[in-house]
């Protein structure tokens, strides 16, 4: 019998999902939720900035001039579906089905890659073809940085999940790999929620107002 570094709040861990069965896993998941709270403030600040600057177009292109519903819908659908497949991966995790977990995670990051590709293409079109780079106006600064931050998060998420896939392949589903897969799932869903706000606050209001 060993005593862990962590004080023991007696709790029957064996009945919990795998990722919660160790004290360490539990701590990290709580920590990750708090990290997501901090991310929420970070994105909240970026949204606030964007909304303040939205009308500051300085005679340059406006949201209405730039945005087209087609590509935006494509990005949205791809990302939402990836969130769904990510959810499926968590279900497979709960079933301790390694193959299913790995499979759905791969689908998720492929969709993530498509999303990033679409977004890069959108940025490229604005900046190069439509004469609307980041330095054109405060509105565009706010737009590129808000969406760029989200896009960077998605890209980092892809790298992270690739790392987890390698570990899953090598070690199978253990309390540690289960925890990592679960946390990556939380992160992915969080980014999806942020996107929904972007869709509403940036694109829909931009197209309508």
């Amino acid at each position: 019998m060993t005593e862990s570094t962590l004080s023991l709040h007696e709790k029957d861990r064996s009945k919990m999902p795998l990722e919660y069965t160790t004290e360490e896993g539990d701590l990290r998941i709580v920590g990750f939720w708090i990290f997501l709270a901090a991310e929420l403030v970070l994105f909240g600040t970026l949204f606030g900035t964007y909304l303040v600057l939205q009308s500051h177009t300085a005679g340059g292109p406006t949201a209405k001039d730039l945005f087209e519903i087609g590509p935006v819908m494509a990005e949205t659908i791809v990302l939402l579906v990836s969130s769904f497949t990510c959810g499926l991966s968590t279900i497979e995790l709960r079933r301790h089905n390694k193959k299913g977990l790995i499979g759905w995670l791969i689908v998720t990051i492929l969709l993530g890659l498509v999303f990033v590709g679409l977004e890069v293409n959108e940025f490229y079109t604005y900046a190069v073809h439509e004469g609307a780079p980041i330095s054109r106006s405060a509105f565009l600064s706010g737009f590129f940085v808000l969406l760029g931050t989200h896009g960077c998060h998605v890209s980092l998420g892809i790298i992270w999940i690739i790392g987890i896939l390698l570990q899953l392949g090598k070690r199978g589903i253990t309390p540690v790999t289960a925890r990592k897969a679960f946390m990556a799932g939380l992160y992915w869903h969080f980014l999806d929620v942020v996107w929904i706000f972007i869709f509403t606050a940036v694109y829909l209001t931009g197209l309508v107002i």
Partner: protein
Amino acid sequence: MIDSIKSFMGWFFVTGDPMIYGADASIALASIGIVAVLTYFKKWKWLWQEWLTSVDHKKIGIMYIIAALLMLFRGGVDALMMRTQLTLPNLHFLDAEHYNQVFTTHGTIMIIFVAMPFIFGLMNIAVPLQIGARDVAFPFLNALSFWLFFVGAMLFNLSFVIGGSPDAGWSSYAPYADVEMNPGVGQNYYLLGVQISGIGSLATGINFLVTILKMRAPGMTLFKMPMFTWSILITSVIVVFAFPAFTVALALMTIDRLFGAHFFTIAAGGSPMLWANLFWFWGHPEVYIVLLPVFGIFSEVIATFAHKTLFGYAVMVWSMVAISLLSFITWLHHFFTMGNTAPVNAFFSISTMLIAIPTGVKIFNWLFTLNKGRIQFTTPMLWALAFIPNFTIGGVTGVMLAMAPADYQYHNSYFLVAHFHSTLIAGTVFGIFCGLHYWWPKMFGYMLDETKGKWSFWIFMISFNVCFMPMYFLGLMGMTRRMYTYPAGLGWTPINVVMTIGAFGMGAGFVLMAYNIIWSAMHGKKDATGDPWNGRTLEWSTASPAAEYNFAHIPEVSERDAFAVTKEKRKAGNAGTVKSYAPIHMPNNTGIPVIMASFMFVAGFGCVFEWYWMAIPGVIGVIACMIARSFVYNDHHYISVEEIKRTEAATGRLS
């Protein structure tokens, strides 16, 4: 070729001022000296294994405090340079540009690289011990936080000799701090140095939040926690919710400067006021981040040396909670005069004044704790007692400043400078000195000398008043902040002379404290019991310094002031049951945090000079370290029962 190298060097290194050459020389000499000593005594391996790669919260705490003391020295020298320049009218000790740089680095260093890391150091030392835990929740992240702070501080300080210092004030208001009006690398140093250490601070906030919420000893419910731990819990919440806003603000200004965006510029629709709002949305909570923890320290110290439990425990907690909530809705009081409507000013005026209520409640609780106590005037207690009246003056003048119409008179005058030094020095600095003397034996196993400690206290405290009390009147007489010189004949000269004397007195007090530290390291009284002050909380139940694993058995807690209760029980003959030891699971040391932070430094330095050939590999290095960390699986080891027995026997604790 030679010419172009020459011109590069002339631009890269700051030249022209003899003081800078002096600094260059002393930095070079100090570095050579350190390398030589380490090499001569063959200490490199020791340094790497025992310190640089350590994930032990006690060692990380000590490193934080050493770094913060060094930074306090630098910030203090900046302060003395300013005071020297202002002693008499029309002096030319510093020119205008140089003065601007000095108040900018002084303010930034004092807040970001002294107050915060000093507090982080003390909480690293004390919190896990107070809650009966063996480490923090995420030891790796804890080491990473420290190293990010450290490289951020180094980057910021480098500006002094390479490239030029920032000069836009610690609040870096746009549009002055933006690139059109402030070209060059100075402001980039501010943005990146502060950003890097800020990421570390955010991680610390998350870490301690989880540690305190999840790792308390069995039986220690939230309302049985020591008050210092409470203050850190609340501070951590503020950190988590305030720092991301600052991260964004700094990033946006960096993007403005490096990539030509228009967030805060005047051209192309940018909004300089947006910077003021974002900065202070973090900046006001920040002052509570450096204040609430010292409230916690004073609560511990006053209870210990009054030999009573803290008066009004629950009220103390709730008033801190109230302060933390209010701290998020007062930021606008920093710019009442910048064109808000009357209702907006009225709202922020009232919300600011409201903070005085919970703060006042706390002052009275400390006084009631002292009431009828058996007060013992140790050095930490002197700092705590001096805090009460001196800080109250800062608080009262804060309420004066909170009245928006009156603030049109006080704004940006020396009245304001006196106010925030009354809170930052009589609050934060007295608090960290108090905590330093209080926990010193726990950190190192010997005491700081009391006589020297008391002398340094009296010199510092009296000089503080000599320097900052007259400053209020100087402000009312019309002297504004950030002015580098002034004409004769305004009646300001005598007060300025007195203030400079006070400032040098504080310097003397600090030097004496440093001497006391060195003297005590050689001759200090050993702390054999682990409980030199007859303490009330669990950190005093361990040996001094505590073993790597802190507690051989996790303590069980039934009441507040857990250790005081245990001692009473022991006196009554109830020694508790003897339990056998079990192997203890501890995290391994790791070099990744320090390496990762070094890459961060490279990336930061590259961005400062817009050398992307340097910045991009730096960022890749950071990501590579993260990936490397993700693949580390055996990151723990066990401490065997024999070793525990040996360690416990060495401090006479084998039960």
